[in-house]
């Protein structure tokens, strides 16, 4: 069942059982499930107050044009910067678009021309008026090769041109060269920057906007004290429904143990990214159950182990399947992850209909793994205890980021399981910067990573299409003509249901080919102080616009 409907259902059930009592979910059930109780959405919103949020890492900048770190999206989207349309966070799990800076739009029958009608009377945080010129200037900046905007530029490769309509600055027309299902969504949800400031912003890196964004949203940037806090204040001139909160302050506290002590002292209204142990046990042990709600929410992401198909050991799908059979997904989930993560076998957002939920993770079955390895020709021919094939011993290196707590547990476990099977695995821990380089250059046998997305809709092209093995994110060099055909067909399929059907087919193919061992969909584990109202987790993180503070 979908997440955001649960409070509504609980409310409904309570209302049925006793009509005169205030509707309340059973005490403890919400805590157990990590969902916000219905009471969070009750009451008349009150204006005023400051909310203090714990942030676990400082973003590199507050500039979406030059930096692709997800934390920037979380801090800015729908809060400071706005786009022509935005994800409707009440529509879980599909998150259809709703109007924002555009009031409405039309799509031509050939799906190549998009016309956006923009809202009038919107002002930038510095008072300048907003118009279609800003949209056009933002696109121009993204396509400027001297700007570090590669991550956005790729989305607009097939955009032929974009301009305001003649004599009408409030109509923007974009023309594409070929139909692409993400083209509209990418353009509609692009954060818009002010044209009058972009003119003098150069490569953005040395512009004030790099750290002090100017947008049209319900909150305006206030201050960034490096290593300490980033704060935003209510935009009193906001065109839409004004925010209730006066200010939102993000305090940067990287150390989880210190963060938890500050939480105990009551210094946070919202605490992001608790450690699994803290969320599952410490909160209750510290007596915080009376003052906090626990929040567990699954964003689109998954952990995986990738097997480099350019290596002799992993070119055979039977070997890759065998790797799946030696990983006790359920056991690991319960012991290392405290049962919080969801097992997954799907590349897409697990709650969406792009996933075939009937594909269960392969069970722990070493005998089956041994049989598959034998079939693939990996036997211990020379009797040295290690399987080999055509003179190549099955000895490979598992590359991992030294920071990962989960992999530090998983890797030795995997090493031990493989040794029993006659396969030698070495573990190589490197720091993140080196990891990025080695993976980018395909210099690994096996490695583990997590893919995360800020939108539920995504194109698997960059990760699974064979053409992306060269310069793209297909680091394991998965090359499959059938998969290529499905991915290409889906790119030109604008009908959601039809496209999701293609993606489920792709999912079944990936399941059989096993280029990755899909592991888990990781939840965000957060805590919200009782008294914070109107807050709602979504794939787009927390919206702050409807949040208010109940009187203490």
């Amino acid at each position, binding site marked *: 069942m979908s997440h955001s409907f649960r409070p509504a259902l609980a409310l409904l059930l309570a209302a049925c059982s006793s009509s005169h009592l205030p509707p309340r979910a059973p005490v403890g059930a919400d805590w157990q499930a990590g969902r916000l109780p219905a009471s969070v959405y009750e009451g008349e919103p009150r204006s005023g107050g400051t909310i203090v949020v714990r942030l676990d890492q400082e973003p590199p900048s507050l500039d979406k044009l030059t930096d692709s770190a997800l934390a920037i999206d979380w801090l800015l989207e729908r809060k400071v910067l706005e786009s022509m349309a935005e994800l409707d966070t009440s529509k879980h799990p599909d998150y259809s678009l709703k109007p924002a800076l555009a009031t409405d739009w039309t799509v031509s029958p050939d799906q190549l021309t998009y016309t956006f009608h923009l809202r009038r009377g919107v002002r930038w945080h510095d008072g300048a008026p907003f118009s279609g010129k800003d949209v056009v200037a933002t696109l121009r900046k993204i396509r400027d090769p001297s700007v570090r905007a590669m991550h*956005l530029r*790729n989305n607009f490769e097939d955009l032929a041109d974009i301009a305001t309509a003649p004599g009408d600055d409030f109509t923007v027309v974009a023309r594409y060269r070929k139909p692409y299902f993400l083209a509209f969504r990418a353009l509609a949800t692009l954060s818009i920057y002010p044209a009058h400031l972009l003119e003098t912003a150069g490569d953005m890196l040395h512009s004030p906007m790099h750290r002090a964004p100017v947008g049209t949203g319900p909150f305006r940037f206030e201050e960034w004290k490096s290593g300490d806090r980033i704060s935003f204040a209510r935009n009193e001139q906001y065109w839409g429904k004004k925010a209730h909160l006066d200010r939102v302050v993000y305090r940067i506290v990287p*150390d989880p143990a210190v963060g938890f002590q500050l939480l105990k002292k009551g210094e946070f209204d919202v605490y992001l990214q608790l450690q699994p142990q803290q969320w599952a046990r410490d909160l209750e042990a510290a007596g915080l159950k009376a003052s906090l709600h626990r929040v567990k929410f699954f964003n689109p992401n998954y952990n995986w182990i990738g097997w480099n198909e350019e290596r002799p050991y992993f070119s055979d799908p039977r070997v890759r399947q065998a790797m799946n059979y030696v990983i006790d997904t359920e056991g690991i989930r319960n012991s290392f992850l405290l049962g919080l993560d969801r097992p997954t076998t799907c590349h897409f957002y697990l709650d969406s209909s792009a996933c075939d939920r009937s594909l269960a993770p392969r069970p722990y079955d070493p005998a089956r793994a041994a049989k598959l390895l034998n079939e693939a020709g990996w036997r211990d021919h020379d009797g040295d205890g290690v399987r080999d094939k055509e003179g190549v011993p099955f000895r490979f290196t598992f590359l991992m980021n030294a920071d990962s707590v989960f992999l530090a547990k998983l890797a030795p476990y995997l090493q031990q399981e493989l040794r029993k099977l006659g396969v030698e695995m070495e573990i190589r821990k490197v720091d993140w910067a080196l990891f990025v380089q080695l993976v980018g250059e395909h210099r690994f046998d096996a490695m583990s990573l997590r893919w995360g997305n800020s939108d539920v809709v995504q194109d698997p092209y960059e990760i699974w299409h064979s053409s992306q093995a060269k310069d793209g994110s297909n680091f394991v060099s998965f090359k499959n003509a059938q998969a290529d055909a499905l991915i290409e067909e889906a790119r030109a399929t604008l009908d959601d249901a039809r496209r999701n059907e293609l993606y489920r087919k792709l999912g079944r193919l990936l399941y059989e080919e096993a280029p990755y061992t899909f592991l888990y969909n990781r939840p965000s584990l957060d805590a919200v102080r009782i008294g914070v109202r109107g807050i709602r987790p979504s794939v787009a993180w927390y919206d702050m616009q409807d949040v208010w503070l109940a009187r203490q």
Partner: protein
Amino acid sequence: MTLKLARRFAGMVPILLGITLVAFAVVRAAPGDALALQGEAALRGGGATVAQMREYRRLMGLDDPFLLGYARWLGQLIRGDLGHSFRDGRPVLVLLSEALPVTLLLALPSLFLGYLLAVPIGIVSGARPGGFLDRTLSRIVFLLYSLPIQWVALMLVVAAAGRGLPIYGLRSEGNRSLGDLLLHLVLPIACLTYGSLAVVSRYLRSSMVEAMGQDYVRTARAKGLSESAVVLKHALPNSLLSLITLFGLTLPALTSGAVIVERIFGLPGMGKLTFDAVLGRDVPVLMGAITLAGALTLIGILVSDLLYAAADPRISLRGRRP
């Protein structure tokens, strides 16, 4: 004297250049990609990840030949510009000027406090080596020395959290008073100080022990001086020279910051700045921090030489002619 001093300063310039050249070579040769500071998104190019990395490197000037890169950096330095951070585009000078005061705010009181406590311990221990006080104090300072700082810091945080002592940052929200600032400094300074007690006190102790065996101490005792006069007036002044050496060596370490303490107590100083720059392969920031540390090391050595000259008439800046 002034001329000699000027010469010493001039002699430091080539050494500093050598330091920066070696540092630049190491920083540029380090494997890893500056794109790392984008997090997991670094590997998601929307279709052109590796091409994106190449373009990024070109924009950041990382593709330039090594010597050209160094010459460019040096040219900037001469104009008083340390370049801009890859991470947030801000001038490195601004970043250093934000981080250095925080580090000094921790390091100077900690240095002062460390000597204030360690010198008496060293004197007492050295005056009667092997005695009850010596054994007790030695055990205590070694026990402190062996405690891992991360553990101590977290224990202090846990202990202080329930007692109203601030545990994070430099100031409470909206409080600008000096008292509030000092309260915030209590725990980090305690953390930075306890370990240095052993080092300083043991140094002083061993030179005290050596001095106490000298002829002039026997003479002083033979004159019938009280034991405290023997220790404080005769043995101690001669032992202090070793502390000057130590002081010269610790001066640069003070400004390089303390990564763990800064992280746990949320004090963004030089340690955090340098550590983040290493992880993110932020070449300009790293070079700025290394140049600063190199210059301070050289100054530290010079200062301790000057202190020697002041403390000991046998040593002078002039040196001996061959």
